[in-house]
């Protein structure tokens, strides 16, 4: 290999098979004939020539390197002395078949590349999106005013929410004891979760605190959560056997 070749990086190849094909082509070999083990040295020399071996990329190359070295060592040993496992015996043959298949796909890929790059015409993007927005019903200017008012209201309520948070610090422990008492007072010692949470009227933070309190009570095995089936009402009940 000349020096320039050594300066290539693994990223130049699409994988170990690509590198092998490159070596086969460079040596003008025919995949059908070439004893794969002869390529082992060149292949490993190539890997060693790389200054920084990015292990993540290299692992795939190293697997093939080990297969090649195995094939090579096998070829060096007298056949009569060594009994090889039948399945191990055809590593070389498998690699050859894989190379042939890969080479055919590489040709197909080159063909696709030509189609893609060779396309000399242009088309427009669909206009469908514009039509979707045109499907809106005509609205009176009053609707716009309403929408504006609503927006303003939302903005104000946001500020209010912040003030409430500041004024009323939430306490999970407090909420836990509240929930315990509430359940005790309920008939059947069972309460629907949404009623317990106050139907969202108390704001998101209080909701979150209540949920956390419920979960904590479950963890402490003071209450259980019951639901007959998916999307059905959720009930909180006192853990049986506890006071």
């Amino acid at each position, binding site marked *: 290999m000349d020096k320039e070749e050594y300066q290539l990086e693994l990223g130049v190849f699409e994988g170990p098979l690509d590198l092998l094909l490159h070596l086969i082509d460079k040596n003008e070999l025919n995949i059908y004939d070439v004893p794969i083990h002869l390529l082992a040295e060149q292949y490993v020399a190539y890997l060693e020539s790389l200054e920084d071996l990015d292990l993540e990329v290299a692992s*795939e190359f190293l697997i093939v390197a080990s297969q090649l070295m195995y094939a090579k060592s096998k070829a060096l040993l007298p056949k009569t002395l060594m009994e090889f496992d039948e399945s191990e015996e055809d590593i070389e043959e498998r690699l050859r078949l894989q190379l042939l298949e890969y080479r*055919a*796909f590489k*040709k197909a*890929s080159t063909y696709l590349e030509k189609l893609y790059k060779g*396309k000399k015409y242009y088309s427009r993007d669909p206009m469908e999106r514009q039509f979707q927005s045109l499907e809106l019903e005509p609205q009176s200017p009053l609707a716009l005013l309403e929408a504006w008012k609503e927006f303003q209201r939302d903005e104000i309520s946001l500020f209010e929410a912040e003030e409430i948070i500041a004024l009323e610090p939430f306490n999970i422990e407090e909420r836990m004891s509240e929930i315990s008492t509430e359940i005790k007072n309920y008939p059947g010692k069972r309460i629907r979760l949404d009623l317990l949470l106050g139907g969202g009227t108390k704001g998101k933070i209080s909701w979150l605190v209540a949920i956390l309190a419920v979960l904590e009570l479950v963890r402490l095995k003071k209450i259980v959560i019951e639901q007959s089936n998916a999307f059905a009402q959720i009930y909180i009940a006192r853990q049986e056997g506890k006071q």
Partner: protein
Amino acid sequence: MINQTTIAALEALLFVSGAPLSPSRISEILDWPLDEIVVTIKHLKNNLEENNRGIRLIEVAEGWQLVTAEEYSEIIERLGETVQPKVTPGMMESLAIISYRQPVTRQEIEQIRGVNSDRAVKALYELELVEERGRKEVVGRPILYGTTSKFLQLFGLKEIELLPRWEEFQEEEQEKNEGTITENNT
């Protein structure tokens, strides 16, 4: 009845659609019989060609699409950088495998390429060149991939069957092999 008005209606429809429309879809939208649509398409196609228009009607991705005439591509490119999504060699290899082996799993692609193809397949999926085709009923139920209509469009193919036969990519190798055998025999 095919007249200038029906041809013009078809032209307007194809212009707005941008993407290829199949004759059956056009027939549905215009509410004309399919055979009339087919004739109208031919008329429009011929009109554009005979009048040397900058716009042509081509058959692609199992439909018909208005595109610019090929001879003006260089002029169009002067308009600015043309945006052809970047397809890396790894993506192209994976795409070739998916084109010929579909539906195929990522694991099968990796087996052929001998290299991890997670990123390549994901990128093809994001470009909508490939799509999910259900799952393979083996351990782990891996996703099966196939090519899309957009793939046909971007590669200028009328239909997937018009790709060269798979054997054409192998022939050369087989010839070489036969050659070797005869050499050995002599």
